[in-house]
């Protein structure tokens, strides 16, 4: 899979895989926001394109912004969608990038 071929449906696989939590606040923005929790606390936040908002094509800038929010390289981001990157591996990346100590390692 190429980074630029990622679709809206592909992105929503991440929501289930990482148990991303939708923000409950009434939003003004056209796109939904999701939180990632680590050790029960909200640590990362990202915006996903509106699933019902169009043909499913996502701009490169939008994809890069999501990838940056999740602290991933392009390859890690693709692996996350395609499945080689497990939720546990993602958690380890977040611990590493946020400078927190991983209690499981």
């Amino acid at each position, binding site marked *: 899979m190429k980074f630029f071929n990622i679709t809206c449906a592909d992105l929503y696989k991440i929501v289930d895989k990482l148990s991303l939590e939708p923000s409950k606040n009434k*939003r003004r*923005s056209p796109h939904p926001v999701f939180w990632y929790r680590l050790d029960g606390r*909200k640590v990362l936040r990202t915006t996903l394109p509106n699933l019902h908002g169009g043909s499913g094509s996502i701009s490169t*800038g939008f994809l*890069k912004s999501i990838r940056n*929010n999740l602290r991933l390289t392009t390859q890690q981001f693709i692996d996350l969608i395609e499945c080689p990157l497990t939720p546990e591996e993602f958690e380890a990346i977040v611990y590493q990038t946020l400078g927190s100590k991983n209690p499981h390692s």
Partner: protein
Amino acid sequence: MTSSFSTHPLQIREYPNQSYSTEEEQFNTLLMDRLETLTNQTSELRSDVIGITKYNAQIRDLGEDAFKLMEPIMVVIEEYPNEDSYIASYPELEVFGEGSTESEAIMNLKLAILDLYDDLLSTQSGELGDLPKNWLHILKQLIIKSNP
């Protein structure tokens, strides 16, 4: 003189009548994966270097009377001319807005900042990680909520 390519023992080109050992197949798969990774990285680099125009813009308000900015803030605009797309972002808060024009992207960024502010205010402090706590600290210094 023989080049390093011609002396390489394994090939990725497939010949119809040639059989491959498991080791060769694994190597070919690995090579194809690496090639795809490099293709992705090259595409990204190309769009970074050629396709994107990046500049700063100043915003003075958040588009709602109920919320005032203490001072103008600098945001980053990225233009993707090949896709008719703009991203406006405020990196310190990790928020962004997208649009097909610069002004649409900025407007969506303002909405995203306000959503973030509300989102953080409505979350108990103990539930927030260090980074979101820092975002809230920044936002409290940036935004004044005026009573109607």
